[in-house]
């Protein structure tokens, strides 16, 4: 047990976006980008400060009101949460820049963009709150914040298709949160605490803990659109406007993964069984194959990208079986756990960059063509080389070719799979990659093909394409400091090696 250093950054990371969301409402509609862009940069600075702080101190905490658990709530900032926060900030800044120009184009102007900035800032606050929270009920509140804002953003266009997809998304998300909350109630009932660090110590295996694990996992799987519950994702992500789709698929669904990772490693450690891990893995593998296959069949670019999200999120699920070894399995090497973790983190980052780039590119295509039928992508390379390049680069990362971030993720995942003796996951990973290669090359082949009839490409602001390209490049650049990232993560004793963050004393902290 050790006392963790306190920091003022966690409340700022949640409070500042929230404040910006409220302040931006007071700006005239045309001026909202001003607080929008400045605010995004400000949050970026805070996220950078968080990186510096955690690389210096490891894990830091903040106790709002000074009320320590079990009564109060703790905000905990460790390298894992900082990775997610800075990822959100980085992608958020690009999407913010993109959205400003996108909403001025003919297609983008159909969206009720004045509400974009307030909702996006609130969503940002919710995401940061989620990544910082150390209290399972507070997680519920942040999850709901994210849901409401995300659906609000998804229906900004106000079209019937988007509204229907949004309602489906919202209902699925509410059911997910209610399942999660039932688990929270049972955990509170059996332990009398909501703090994750305390729970890790006092939660005992038994029917209650197992059932809580089941409903919480079920709820989060619905939230993150895991295989049998993926039905809401493709319509919702494809019907939203381009910047919003990018936010939804790059950041929002990752929230469910983050919570699941935290809870599985820190709270339910002793309640996990081999079968539970395998079940999640099967869902992941099924999602990889099913999603990729569906993506291959799509005729619309946005739907293709959305189905590809289902598949890529499946890879994230496949790290969960690696957290629980087969009973009786022994190995000399203890590397599978860091490998699984690293795979998960890289997959999150690579997918976030690649997928946001894909959606932004799809938005550019929509802005240029007025629709997103794949068949009309012919001659894209000649007309919009930067966009074609962005799709290509992001696609390579999605497939997992070296030296992309996606490659790192899949390589680490395979490493973890073999080191932990669960070789049966490898075929699913490879088939998924092949199918992904299939639809990416289909896109690229069309992009290089000469136009059959004259495709009318409207001019599109160059900065839109730059944003998409930079994000695509991001999915490659993350592979460069891979070693450093692993060291950074280990600094905070992540990797599920038990985090003893019990805060000493019980004093009212403001004296």
């Amino acid at each position: 047990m050790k006392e963790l250093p306190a920091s003022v950054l966690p409340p700022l990371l949640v409070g500042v976006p929230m404040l910006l969301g409220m302040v931006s409402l007071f700006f005239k509609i045309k001026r909202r980008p001003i607080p929008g862009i400045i605010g995004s940069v400000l949050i970026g600075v805070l996220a950078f400060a968080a990186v510096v702080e955690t690389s210096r101190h490891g894990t830091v905490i903040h106790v709002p009101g000074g009320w320590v658990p079990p009564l109060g709530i703790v905000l905990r900032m460790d390298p894992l949460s900082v990775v997610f926060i800075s990822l959100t900030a980085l992608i958020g800044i690009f999407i913010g820049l993109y959205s400003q120009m996108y909403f001025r184009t003919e297609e983008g102007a159909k969206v009720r963009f004045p509400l974009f900035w307030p909702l996006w800032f609130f969503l940002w606050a919710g995401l940061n709150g989620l990544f910082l929270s150390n209290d399972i009920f507070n997680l519920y509140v942040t999850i709901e914040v994210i849901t409401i804002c995300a659906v609000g953003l998804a229906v900004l266009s106000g079209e019937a298709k988007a509204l229907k997809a949004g309602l489906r998304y919202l209902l699925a998300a509410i059911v997910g949160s209610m399942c999660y909350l039932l688990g929270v109630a049972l955990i509170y009932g059996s332990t009398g605490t909501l703090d994750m660090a305390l729970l890790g110590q006092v939660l005992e295996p038994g029917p209650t803990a197992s059932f809580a694990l089941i409903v919480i996992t079920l709820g989060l799987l619905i939230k993150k659109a895991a295989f049998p519950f993926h039905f809401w994702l493709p319509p919702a992500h494809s019907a939203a406007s381009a910047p919003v789709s990018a936010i939804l698929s790059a950041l929002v669904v990752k929230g469910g993964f983050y919570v699941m990772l935290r809870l599985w490693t820190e709270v339910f450690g002793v309640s996990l069984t081999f079968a539970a891990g395998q079940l999640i893995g099967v869902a992941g593998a099924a999602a990889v194959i099913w999603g990729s296959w569906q993506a291959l069949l799509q005729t619309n670019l946005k739907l293709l990208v959305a189905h590809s999200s289902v598949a890529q999120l499946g890879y994230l699920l496949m790290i969960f079986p690696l957290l629980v070894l087969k009973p009786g399995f022994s190995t000399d090497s203890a590397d599978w756990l860091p490998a699984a973790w690293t795979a998960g983190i890289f997959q999150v980052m690579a997918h976030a960059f690649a997928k946001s780039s894909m959606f932004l590119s799809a938005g550019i295509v929509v802005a240029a063509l007025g629709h997103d039928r794949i068949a009309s992508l012919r001659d894209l390379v000649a007309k919009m080389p930067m966009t074609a390049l962005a799709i290509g680069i992001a696609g390579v990362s999605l497939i997992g070719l070296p030296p992309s971030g996606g490659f790192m993720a899949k390589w680490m995942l395979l490493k973890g799979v073999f080191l932990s003796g669960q070789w049966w996951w490898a075929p699913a990973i490879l088939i998924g990659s092949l199918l992904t290669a299939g639809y990416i090359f289909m896109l690229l082949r069309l992009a290089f093909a000469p136009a059959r009839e004259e495709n009318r490409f409207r001019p599109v602001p160059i900065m839109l394409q730059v944003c998409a390209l930079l994000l695509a490049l991001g999915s490659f650049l993350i592979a460069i400091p891979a070693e450093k990232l692993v060291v950074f993560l280990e600094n905070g004793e992540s990797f599920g090696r038990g985090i003893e963050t019990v805060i000493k004393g019980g004093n009212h902290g403001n004296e």
Partner: protein
Amino acid sequence: METWEIYSLTSVVIFAIGLGGVFLVKHFLRKIIATVIMGGGVFLCFVSFAKRDTLNFPDPVPHALVITGIVVAVTAAAFALSLARRIHKITGEETFEEKE
């Protein structure tokens, strides 16, 4: 059986009814009501646990959590209602099923 035990058992029954309802009923309004019923089950579960050991008062933490939860859940439900009504207004549809 103690009072809290009766209610905690009831709570999961209500939750299961709501859960089944969300998936099985078709109409938007019913689906939304089903989620609210699920919420009722969860909150009942919380509050029944608060009654277990009474000092001078029941455990206040679940009560506070439930008040927070009710507000959040009702906000989400109101949003869902607004979406459903909007869809109905634009397309005349009342369910997710495609019109024949």
